[in-house]
């Protein structure tokens, strides 16, 4: 009797301990995203993708090598996720602890099980009636930022919201500006230290653009940099009269960050009105520029204006990519920029001085970039009521879809467009909240003006093209490269493509049913298998090698 009791007590104690251990395992707090993880970028083990460009340098270049040029033809779909919403993806998903965090059109967002494609939670923002929204070019979103246990997303009604990563619940919600005045926000936030960096769209609605930093904990604004200087500030005199008040210069594509220099690099949108420029005589700083800002204060360190006094809607809203290069025997810290105006630029990212400026598509409006860093403009390319034919068109030589950079090959990859347009301009009065472009561009057609495009590999030390892969029409897809020598991208007809990044040779393709419009695939490791995740249209599709063995992760 006594023995049995003691056995019972021992069993009870063991059971209690086991229970405690289980509880402990279950309640171990999930690891939080740290500022150090963000600094580390894409890790060698492929366990994370935590920001828009993969790393602060925006290279979209993965160290993963399981999928190679030799075996890429064995890619097989693992699952497909459907949004069940109207509109299409323009997003870069994030991956953390085997869960994907994805933003979609109309400010719907999801946490998705990366193993199965099953939804874990869904967030849907209550938006004003869509007829009242002013996002000029689609009710889209370009992705989350993340820090700690919070996700950050901008909204079409110009707010920034912080969501709980575990539930999708709103933690805080801060208005950037009044959306009824033409402001909207679609940019993927960039998290730097304890701040969330965002910008506003609205360059076609007479806004005054800005870049903001918000405290990740509270949502309180830490600083604001107006992309158009106010009265008394240097550069305000580059806008005639009061045109600076509604000059546009929006910010809707995520910038880069150099932790050593503590500088943010953001491309700034076009001046408004886009085409009729009489009212805004001057260079119109900092429209169509790259600005370098102190990440702690938002103070301007330097700027480089690609297109002074723009007449063609050539926003500098492309993705800046950072790299360390050797040019003319000298080590240079550079920022590379394939611009909408037709030129490819390599700038010194400490000083903003031009190193390389060279056309990468047919470019008719400027002869070259002069030694002073300004374009040498040719006569006859000013839009008017009759229209003037200019290359590239208003959408530009490239646009917001991100390129990639392979540091081992020193190659910059971008989907370039060969399209010309007739540009018209007319005088237009400003009405708050109304579209304010003063003209339009119309794509040129006919046998002499065939619109096409190509994936191009550019040497950033010279601006020379190493190879190109031509498409039958211009692609709007981003690019992902891997250390194994692969470039993933897509064409406008809906094909997902894998190419040899060293030669441009096509290795494998799959018809997704919708183009990778503005999206680029991401890649990561899951249970020992390298995955490539493709947002296209209303779907996310996860790909892995059909014969790669599954190795469940242990933690």
């Amino acid at each position: 009797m006594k023995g049995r009791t003691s056995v019972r007590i021992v069993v009870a104690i063991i059971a209690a301990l086991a229970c405690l251990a289980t509880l402990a395992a279950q309640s171990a707090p999930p690891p939080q995203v740290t500022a150090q993880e963000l600094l580390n970028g894409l890790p060698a083990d492929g366990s994370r993708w935590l920001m828009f460009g993969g790393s602060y340098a925006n290279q979209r270049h993965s160290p993963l090598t399981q999928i190679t040029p030799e075996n890429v033809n064995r890619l097989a779909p693992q699952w497909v996720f459907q949004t069940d919403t109207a509109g299409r993806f323009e997003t870069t998903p994030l991956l953390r602890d085997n869960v994907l965090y994805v933003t979609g059109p109309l400010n719907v967002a999801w946490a998705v099980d990366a193993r199965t494609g099953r939804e874990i939670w869904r967030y849907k923002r209550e938006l004003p009636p869509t007829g009242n929204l002013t996002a000029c070019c689609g009710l889209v979103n370009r992705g989350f930022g993340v820090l700690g246990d919070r996700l950050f997303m901008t909204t079409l009604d110009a707010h920034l919201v912080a969501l709980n990563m575990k539930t999708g619940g709103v933690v805080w919600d801060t208005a950037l500006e009044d959306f009824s005045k033409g402001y909207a926000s679609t940019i993927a936030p960039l998290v730097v230290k304890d701040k969330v960096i965002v910008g506003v769209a609205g360059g076609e609605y007479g806004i005054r653009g800005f870049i903001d930093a918000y405290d990740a904990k509270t949502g309180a604004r830490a600083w604001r940099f107006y992309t158009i200087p106010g009265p008394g500030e240097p550069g305000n005199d580059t806008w005639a009269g009061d045109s600076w008040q509604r000059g546009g210069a929006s910010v809707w594509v995520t910038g880069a960050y150099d932790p050593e220099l503590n500088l943010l690099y953001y491309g700034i949108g076009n001046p408004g009105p886009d085409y009729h420029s009489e009212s805004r005589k001057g260079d119109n700083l900092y429209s169509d520029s790259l600005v370098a800002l102190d990440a702690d204060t938002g103070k301007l360190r330097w700027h480089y204006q690609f297109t002074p006094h723009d007449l063609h809607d050539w926003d500098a809203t492309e993705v800046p990519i950072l790299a360390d290069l050797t040019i003319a025997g000298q080590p240079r810290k550079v920022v590379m920029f394939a611009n909408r105006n037709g030129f490819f630029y390599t700038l010194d990212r400490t000083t903003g001085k031009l190193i390389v400026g060279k056309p990468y598509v047919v470019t008719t409006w400027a002869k070259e970039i002069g030694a002073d860093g300004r374009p040498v403009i040719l006569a006859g390319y000013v839009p008017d009521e009759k229209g003037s034919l200019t290359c590239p068109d208003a959408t530009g030589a490239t646009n917001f879809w991100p390129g990639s950079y392979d540091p081992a090959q020193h190659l910059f990859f971008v989907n370039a467009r060969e399209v010309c347009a007739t540009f018209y301009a007319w005088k237009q009065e400003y009405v708050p909240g109304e579209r304010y472009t003063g003209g339009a561009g119309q794509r040129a057609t006919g046998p002499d003006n065939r619109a096409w495009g190509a994936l191009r590999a550019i040497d950033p030390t010279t601006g020379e093209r190493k190879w190109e892969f031509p498409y039958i029409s211009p692609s709007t897809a981003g690019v992902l490269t891997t250390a194994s020598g692969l470039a993933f991208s897509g064409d406008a007809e809906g094909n997902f493509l894998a190419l040899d990044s060293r030669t441009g040779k096509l290795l494998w393709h799959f018809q997704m049913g919708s183009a990778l419009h503005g999206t680029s695939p991401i890649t990561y490791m899951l249970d020992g298998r390298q995955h490539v995740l493709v947002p296209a249209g209303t779907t996310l599709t996860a790909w892995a090698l059909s014969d790669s063995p599954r190795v469940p992760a242990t933690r």
Partner: protein
Amino acid sequence: MRSIYFVLVVVIVAAANLLAQDVYLKIPADPPTKNPLEGNADAITAGMGAYRVRCADCHGMDARGIRGPDISQVWVRGRTDAALFRTIRNGVPNTEMPAHPAPRTSDLDIWRILAYLKTISPTTAAAPGSGNATSGEHVFSSNCIGCHRIGDRGGNLGPDLSRIGAARARAAMARQIRGTMGSFRTGYEPVTLTTPNGQEIQGVKKNEDLFSVQVMDTRERIQGYLREDLRTVSDEKKSAMPVFGPDKLSDADLDDLLSYLESLQGITPAPSSAR
């Protein structure tokens, strides 16, 4: 009889509008019945630019129609500002006329375009064509029906012409028939595929990408082909439609044919039959 059909159509259109309003809750309140910007000089200038960029490709710089119909006659034919506004805003279903939704196109954008269009529109109706539509139908049956379809009869290689009278200007149709129009409509570009054994497949291109091409061949077989299975895929410069010069089709026959084509305004939905 005709007036009964007219009333029926009006009722059906009105019912469809009501239905549409129930389904799409966000359709804004009806616009004003009269263009608030009519005669406004700034609006006309802005409207001219917008018209040239967004409308002229199909409707012509002079609004007399190229691929799209002549829209200089809309007011003299009794269309109202409000109806024209709705046509631009919502587009015309199953045609190339797209919708122009907000926020990309604001109410003011549409009024500006209409303000400009009014300035280039005549105040009196153009004289109707002199041809005889009944004779024109015979011309059609002996020359065109092999490739073009009207309702339930005719071929499929060329565009369906059941509502061509509503979609194209008379002058544009004349140019097309006489062979003086250079462009092909999307989906009807002539193409020749050559198989590895040298066989040629001629037809019109329905779609294509880097790896494949989808065609309707001259026997009206619709089929997709992989480029890797073909020796060549050649885009032809010449339209699949023969040129009907004055030697093949007299001016009088052309006049009759055009009058017949103008009478083709689409298929009126039949009411459901009682059981």
